[in-house]
């Protein structure tokens, strides 16, 4: 009987001791990290395009962090963003949800055909990053450096004078592509060495 009591006592004592150590460690060595929302927000491309059906990137990040949203609803971020979010949250990456749009290979920028613009300011109101300049009855123009290519200005334009133009490679942005010959398969022509 006393043996049982001793063991119970010992176990309880140990439990209290280790609990105290763990509790102390949790307080003492607490890692001050960004709240998860900030980290998620930092991974999203900040195009503020709303393709995820949220009004901007942060609300989507908020929704993911609350656990009631899938991570595959961001077409501008594409597979790489999904992978990064999956990595952060420790979940499996999922393929991009096609319902919300497709990943584009090239970055686009909005360009207003200025002689057709009637100055209705509708695109200015639609632009989530204030990248369109202009006033009522004045011609509008896109500050291309600030444009995130989100597309949101195209639809409201009553005269369809906004084009999404791919951003071309400049001599400054050009760089060598990854060498292609890395993986050779049997059908490749084998050169004599």
């Amino acid at each position, binding site marked *: 009987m006393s043996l049982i009591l001793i063991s119970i006592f010992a176990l309880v004592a140990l439990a209290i001791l280790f609990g105290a150590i763990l509790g102390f460690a949790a307080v003492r060595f607490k890692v001050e990290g960004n709240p998860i929302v900030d980290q998620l927000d930092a991974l999203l491309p900040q195009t*503020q395009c709303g393709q995820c059906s949220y009004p901007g990137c942060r609300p989507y990040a908020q929704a993911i962090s609350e656990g009631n949203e899938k991570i595959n609803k961001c077409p501008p971020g594409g597979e790489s963003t999904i992978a990064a979010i999956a990595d952060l949250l420790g979940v499996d990456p999922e393929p991009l949800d096609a319902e919300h749009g497709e990943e584009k290979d090239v970055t686009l920028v909005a360009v207003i055909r200025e002689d057709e613009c*009637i100055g209705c300011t509708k695109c200015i109101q639609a632009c*989530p*990053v204030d990248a369109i300049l202009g006033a009522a*009855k004045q011609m509008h123009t896109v500050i291309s450096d*600030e444009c*995130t290519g989100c597309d949101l200005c195209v639809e409201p334009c009553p005269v369809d004078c906004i084009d999404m133009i791919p951003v071309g490679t400049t*001599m400054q942005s050009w760089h060598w592509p*990854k060498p292609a010959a*890395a993986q050779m398969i049997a059908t490749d022509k084998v050169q004599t060495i």
Partner: protein
Amino acid sequence: MNMHHFKLYDFDGGIHPEQNKSQSTQLPITTAKIPQRLILPIAQHIGAPGNPAVKPGDKVLKGQIIAKGEDFVSCNLHAPTSGIVGVIEDREVPHQSGMSATCIEIITDGKDTWIDHQGLDNYLESDAASLIDCIAQAGISGMGGAGFPTHVKASIPASKINTLIINAAECEPYITSDDLLMREYAMDIIKGIEILQRILLPEQCYIGIEDNKPQAIEALQIALKENLDDTHNIHVVVIPTKYPSGGEKQLIQILTGKEVPVAGIPADIGIVCQNVGTVHAIYQAVALGIPLISRITTITGDAVSSPQNYQVLLGTPVTDVLSQANAQPNKVKRLIMGGPMMGFTIASADTPITKTSNCIIAASDQELPDPAMEQACIRCGMCTQACPAQLLPQQLYWFAKSSNLEQAQAHNISDCIECGACSYVCPSNIPLVQYYRFAKGEIKQAKSDKKSSEQAKLRFDIRNARLDRETAEKDAKRKARAEAAAKKQAAKKAAPPATPASGDATAEPSVDTEVLKQKVLAAQTRVDKARERLAMAQEQNLETADALELGLNKQIDKLTAAQKSLEEAKS
């Protein structure tokens, strides 16, 4: 005073590729013919491109400025000969992307008529500022390959500098332009160094030169002896031949044992490094008033029958010099501008010679065969042995291959100087440098993407804040109005009920004539504005005129309604 008693240091790694220099050193420097057309890119240097100062059809004289470098880091460009400006348009320029950029075309007249020019009198007594200005006017940029504007480098405060290093190593195979320049113009180079010394006031000056150029070494030493008395502090330092000893960082390490700190410049450790060709250009500009309009270029390679060095006018299409050196076009498999280790291929022989084009290699298939098929990396570590920057090329390769940019950065990929020693020794024939260039480009891209996404986020937040503020303000106004209305209501309730003015019992009694007056006024201004807009639209024949007219009519209706109710209230 001499080259003995000199302690040399070594840098890690390095390779000893086939020299291939003797082919082009058999003949002296020859002046290349003036071609019919010169193609001059406005950006031949690092920094902002020059702004064209001529327009098509203008007559230009030799030495006349045709593009002005107006930014701090930029360079002037001069007409290399006299003629007429042809077009100013995008042409293929010497760049590894093979892309086009703005070029000024000059149709030469063959007369080679100089503009008025003269050097500084007594230039060794001039002050630093006027010497630097003279260099800046002459549009000189680093001629060893990087093309950094020389006057910017020379503007580093002299108090910071204790050592001037003249890079005469010319470690890349094939290239002999500096070698021949030193053999033939040693005296001018020494005078050029004196000018730089006058500007930077260094305690000592080293000319670092590889031991595979005995004739150039001798020429420099004779020039030193003849030109200067025994009090000079210029040392010709002969260093062992090893690639890449001519890399700026490596040459500094060899001569001083010091390392340029990461992300820093040589001036951080009291050193300024200038290429020997640049020094020659400085002499010509300061002493003779000749701007940088030509350079020595080595034309070599198996497809060239008579390889040698040419003094070429900037803008000369490569094909023109190649034909003078008797190139066999059908034998050329690869056309390289620069050396075989760090030079780049050019896709067309119409590409012009620029300020940095030290060598053209017209290589045959036997000489530089197609790269062998990439094999698996066996981690042999030969690349690590060869790397002059003490990197782990093999780790960088795995990270670049898997696009693991984070780890590539952590392994200091940005310190890679792309010298190509690792690719050279790789037994698996892996194009390592291309992997690094790819990764570096992606990192640069990712950084700029990150920056613009942060910017977008900021703008989005600011916009939201503004919208919130506007809504809040509107809410506040509405609230204030509602409160005011409620007060009035309360006051009215407290007052004895007035007799109804008309049959309508609910709305009319509460209407104050003052309010109505204001409404009428506001409606009036709206109508006026709408009229104005309509007039403008009609003037410009805009499609919106109809819509505006409709809007105007509505405003007029509202105005009359307001006037009516005002009169009703008054009565």
